[in-house]
């Protein structure tokens, strides 16, 4: 049973002690727990985002038989901290032609959009900030803010490269939202609910219960989701909004110093978020492969480790794809989205609906082994 942090902790005895310490004010205590949990999760994800930049450079170096960063810290692992400090101490330059307010607003919108998605990410059955009953729907809606920030950043810079990048980004992000949304609809249909709690509780147990192995249509939907998620986060081979060989740096050409840093941070955290959502929706998320009747806190940590390892494995695949495939052309990008992925996604949705009616919602494994 998935639950939020507060309702999970309230089953333990020390919750009453905490409650007494907060003067029996449950709202205040809930706020304190959420704030602490939020700081921990944001810190964790910001570190993962920072390490993502390091992993990206190290893995690309491996693929291209180079060394990669190896000076700061052991194996260069502290490179992202050095990069962060460098960005902070760089001069902040704004083009005098820019729209100042939107120029300031764009990186903040990117950060807000990405951090707000972290609130519903199910790290384990007990560590989840908000189990909204429209969980996955909320996630799709709020992550659109990143698309808005990409377009705003491109528009507000008043530079031709930024403008082209922003236009491409807007058309790409809104287009790829369609196959992603329809693939997620297929999962909603199989799970019979939009909250992550419902979706996770249907995938408990062995990998045969994961939604990606539920039926052939869900299997394809998983891949459609992953390809669409790559494009939505502007990752290669779909990184046209920031194509460095044709558009200088795309929508963040004019961004310097810390503001560029926020864009980069938001982008890398968003990649982690879509990987985490992919792991939760299709790969069973944080569910343990066996059933246990008792519930202790170390078990929750084990679940977090399971969720993280699935999400980070997907993260590795994302980086691997980036350094393996060449970039697409704009028209090829739109053709893939509208002529291939969207019809395939609709086919999967219809397939899943028919499957639920014909086989009464049973997965392949249940049909074969019959339990």
């Amino acid at each position, binding site marked *: 049973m998935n639950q939020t942090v*507060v*309702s999970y902790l*309230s089953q333990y005895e020390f919750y009453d002690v905490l409650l007494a310490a907060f003067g029996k004010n*449950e709202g205040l205590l*809930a*706020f304190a727990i*959420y*704030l602490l949990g*939020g700081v921990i999760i*944001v810190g964790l994800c910001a570190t993962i985002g920072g390490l993502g930049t390091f992993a990206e450079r190290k893995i690309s170096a491996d693929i291209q038989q180079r060394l990669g960063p190896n000076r700061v810290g052991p194996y260069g692992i502290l490179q992202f901290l050095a990069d962060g400090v460098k*960005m*902070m*101490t760089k*001069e*902040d*330059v704004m*083009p*005098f*032609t820019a729209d100042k307010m939107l120029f300031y607003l764009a990186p903040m919108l990117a*950060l*807000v959009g*990405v*951090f*707000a998605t972290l*609130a519903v990410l199910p790290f384990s059955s007990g560590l989840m*900030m*908000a189990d*909204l009953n429209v969980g996955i729907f*909320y996630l799709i809606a709020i992550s659109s803010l990143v698309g808005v920030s990409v377009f705003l950043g491109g*528009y507000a810079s*008043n*530079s*031709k490269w930024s*403008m082209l990048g922003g*236009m491409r980004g807007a*058309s790409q992000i809104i*287009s790829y939202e*369609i196959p992603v949304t329809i693939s997620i*609809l297929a999962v*909603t*249909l199989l*799970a*019979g609910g*939009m909250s992550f709690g419902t979706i996770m509780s249907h995938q408990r147990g062995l990998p045969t219960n994961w939604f990606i192995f539920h039926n052939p249509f869900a299997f394809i939907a998983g891949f459609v989701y992953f390809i669409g998620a790559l494009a939505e986060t502007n990752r290669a081979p779909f990184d046209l909004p920031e194509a460095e060989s044709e558009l*200088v740096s795309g929508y963040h050409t004019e961004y310097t110093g*810390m503001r560029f840093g*926020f864009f980069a941070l938001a982008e890398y955290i968003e990649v982690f978020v879509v990987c985490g959502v992919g792991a939760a929706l299709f790969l069973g998320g944080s569910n343990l492969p066996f059933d246990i009747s008792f519930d202790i806190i170390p078990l929750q940590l084990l679940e977090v480790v399971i969720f993280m390892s699935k999400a980070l494995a997907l993260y590795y695949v994302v980086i691997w794809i980036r350094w393996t495939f060449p970039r697409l052309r*704009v028209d090829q990008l*739109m*053709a893939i989205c*509208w*002529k291939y992925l*969207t*019809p395939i996604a*609709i086919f999967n*949705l*219809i397939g899943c609906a028919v499957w*639920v009616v014909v086989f*009464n*919602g049973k997965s392949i494994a249940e049909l074969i082994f019959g339990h």
Partner: protein
Amino acid sequence: MTPANFDGLMPVVIFMGLAVALFVGGHFASVLLAPKKPSHLKSTPYECGEQPVGSAWSMFNVRFYVVGLIFIIFDVESVLMFPVAAIFRELNDMGHGGYALIVFLSFISILIEGIAYCWKKGDLDWVKSFQVSTKNNK
């Protein structure tokens, strides 16, 4: 009152607040640490070292603007499909699966019809949409 009363949107607001706090904090640190030597040349928009020609806010041929319109239709329809998908299993368990499936399919068929129309008109192609528009302009 149970803790469930606070399980709503409070964490979401907290996370958004943390994002704003991080942004403002990072900005503050950058203001304190970064050098400030503004010059006119430094703050011109980047155009590969040339003097920028005109503003970037000019007339611009946005290809695929029809795609934006299809996106709106798809987005609204998927918003309407989410509740149906969420209770689809429940309907099936109640024995109305076939009826729900027919309604669902007829709803999706409107979507398919829309994308097929757009595809046939050539709004999904880079070159053909150009040819179609010039032919109509003659």
